[in-house]
């Protein structure tokens, strides 16, 4: 059996086992479940097409997560461009998410992109720090620092609400 066949099987197994988590993160990034699903499908399709570029020096799942996150970010950018009308801009916050959320989710949505992605990957995908570092292409220590910064920002938001 060719290596590509083996990888295809592993990709399918991963898709079936973790689809819901991929969908959850992609939906959080893009803003709606339909677009999130498209991002997951496009991300896995890209992983299938480009599986020859997977060098195997890290977990397959982390490599796939990277394609999914990139697909979701690209989808969000396309959506922002499509909605680039004054009304749409007024209805969205600086991160491109509609401002109908309140509480923690809105606060997370307002975080800088790296912090936001780290939070999503940690709490929505349940990835450990090493996997997150491989997905985002940053050091493990940076993941820890980024998550800590996100916690601080969220704590400030929480305290502001309490006051």
């Amino acid at each position: 059996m060719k290596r590509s066949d083996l990888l295809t099987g592993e990709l399918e197994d991963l898709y079936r086992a973790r689809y819901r988590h991929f969908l959850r993160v992609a939906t959080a990034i893009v803003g709606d479940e339909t677009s999130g699903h498209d991002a997951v499908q496009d991300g896995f399709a890209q992983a299938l097409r480009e599986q020859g570029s997977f060098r195997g020096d890290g977990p397959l799942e982390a490599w796939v997560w990277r394609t999914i996150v990139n697909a979701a970010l690209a989808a969000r950018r396309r959506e922002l461009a499509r909605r680039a009308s004054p009304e749409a801009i007024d209805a969205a916050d600086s991160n491109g998410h509609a401002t109908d959320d309140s509480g923690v989710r809105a606060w997370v949505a307002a975080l800088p992109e790296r912090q936001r992605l780290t939070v999503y990957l940690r709490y929505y995908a349940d990835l450990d720090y090493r996997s997150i570092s491989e997905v985002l292409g940053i050091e493990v220590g940076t993941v820890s620092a980024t998550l800590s910064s996100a916690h601080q920002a969220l704590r400030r938001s929480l305290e502001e609400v309490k006051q």
Partner: protein
Amino acid sequence: MTDVEQLIISELERMSPLPDATRANWADVLQRAGVARRQVRLSRRPILAFAGALVVCLAIAVPAFGLSQDVVSWFSAPAAPGPAQEGFHSLDVGAPAGMAPGVSGTARSVMDTAVAGKDVHLWVAPTKSGGFCLYLETYGGGCDRDRSLTVSPGLAAHTMSGPWVVFGDVLPAKADHLQVTFANGESVSVPLTFVSDPINAGFFVYQVPSSDLAASDWPATFAAVGSDGTTLATATLSGLASVPAPLADSK
């Protein structure tokens, strides 16, 4: 864990719970990747095509019933791994009205085998209505929720260049083996692995010798045959020309 971390987790969970897998559709992924014509999984099973190999050895075999087949004691068979359990139990989520298989209880590994050098397991889970679902690791599966299919073969392939595998089950308790007859008239005898109550069915996995599966190599007829040579039940698989497009595997 910090107070903020706890708050993040609880709030995110409350506002964005883990979505269901209704939309999951691997066939769509293949199509988007432009490889749908090479990556084919086929199944004649009616309820799902959720996730085949030379036959087999099994984990726990006990002599029983005076039959020549292998018999697996259901409650002694090892439990399937977590993701497989989740896969079975997610089949009900988002299933069309009346189509949910109603998987009930623990999925168990009833056969271990190898296809093209790769170990695969055949997992089975009972349904509430007395039937069962099966899943051949990597290749696919399906359900006979109500035990309505006396002989139920499925055909799957990893790629169009093979390996092609037929797998499935037979219900007649007196079946001794499965006779697979190909379109060119040749046939082969495939052993059965019977699983005890509450499954009460014989399972088979067979790797089709031809990797390109030309029309003459098509496994056309499947017969459950008794030890005296009596044909107990049969089923057929349509030829390639009439096989529908790969099934979407959304539940």
